[in-house]
């Protein structure tokens, strides 16, 4: 088997097994979004207006949940030592781990979003736009998160530091993700403008994330 395929299969297998945390993100997402109408009250117009922002915030926090163990688990059990001795470039290994993480935590969020959007009084076109922004934007959250996960790998309570490092970096993704979703719901800005910038942010993070994370891992292993 190809080394990168082996990593992908292993990480996805671990994520869906007991204690893997693949479902944890979706459940967290569901809980946060469900709580919002209770907190705000039955004001349908308000819910519709802030709905996309709530869903995006919940997706952002949910995608952080399982991120801190991504490299820390491999570091703690010695797997990272062996991964560094493999013939596959570390940058690609990191990218594949990011893809596996997105497939098991990001993609379920995207799939759950239409259902959860109903709680926030979103109509069909708004939901379609929202799902599209999440589909394009959540990979950026994962790949920016890779950098934080790699920096926090040797720390005991890395999860807290991870949030502090990663959340500020995700601000542009959040702004343009919500702006694109809002443009589709309430206008008057055209959907395409913020959506294109969101796509650009994701493409940039797909390139920068693995290189930065691999550099951080190499630095820490020495």
């Amino acid at each position, binding site marked *: 088997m190809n080394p990168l395929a082996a990593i992908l299969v292993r990480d996805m297998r671990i994520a869906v097994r007991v204690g893997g945390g693949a479902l944890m993100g979706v459940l967290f997402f569901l809980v946060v979004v469900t709580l919002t109408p209770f907190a705000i009250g039955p004001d349908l117009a308000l819910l519709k207006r802030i709905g996309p922002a709530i869903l995006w915030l919940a997706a952002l926090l949910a995608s952080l949940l399982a991120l801190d163990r991504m490299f820390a688990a491999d570091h703690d059990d010695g797997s990272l030592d062996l991964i560094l*001795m493999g013939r596959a470039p570390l940058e690609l290994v990191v990218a594949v781990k990011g893809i596996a993480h997105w497939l098991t935590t990001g993609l379920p969020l995207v799939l759950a979003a239409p259902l959860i959007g109903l709680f926030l009084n979103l109509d069909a076109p708004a939901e379609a736009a929202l799902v599209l922004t999440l589909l394009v934007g959540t990979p950026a959250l994962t790949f920016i998160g890779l950098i934080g996960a790699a920096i926090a790998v040797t720390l005991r309570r890395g999860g807290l530091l991870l949030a502090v490092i990663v959340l500020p970096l995700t601000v542009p993704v959040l702004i343009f993700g919500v702006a694109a979703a809002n443009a589709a719901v309430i206008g008057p800005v055209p959907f395409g403008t913020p959506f294109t910038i969101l796509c650009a942010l994701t493409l940039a993070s797909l390139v920068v994330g693995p290189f930065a994370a691999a550099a951080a891992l190499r630095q820490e292993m020495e």
Partner: protein
Amino acid sequence: MRLSADDLHCHRGGRDVFAGVSFAVGSGEALIVIGRNGAGKSSLLRGVIGLVRLSQGRLTLEGGDPELTIAEQTHYLGHQDALKPSLSAAENLSFWAGFFDAPSLDIHGALDAVGLASLAGLPAAYLSAGQRRRLSIARLIAVKRPIWLLDEPTSTLDVAAQGRLTGLMQAHLASGGLIMAATHGPIGLAKTQELRLDQASPSLAQDQGDEQEKP
């Protein structure tokens, strides 16, 4: 194939872990690294494969694949077993075989070589310390790499498993591989060199024919 080190120094956390270490190991030879706790045995092994930064010195590998680094031709058996508790023994092993791009995947044969064939489907979480150790040793069998770096390979192994490990090491040496092992106890190999890290300047003692009894 010949792995030689010239005047290696390692400086970590404000102190010299070891200094002026030189050795040379050829195909079919084993180098046993001996020293008290904290003498730098593990750091030396990790330094050879670049997991610890060596502050000075030169490592050369003659007769290896020039396209690959030393680490890429080496198996490292460290203190940690690199196993995922939620995956079964066979899944753990086939992951490493896949990751190291083994041309043929003889997972069952490798598990059999360490006596774990009957536990192939059991999650690694349920294995004992010695069984986990044997499962990581199976990795060395499943993927062929000419250099073995073993850090206390016999710890947690029972007498029978130690004997089996000795057999695997002898077979590896006979097929032209080389071994560097850090150990406290006898390792039961016939042709070994010893590298002592205790003294002020570490020295190489040639030791043909192990006087220690086989375990």
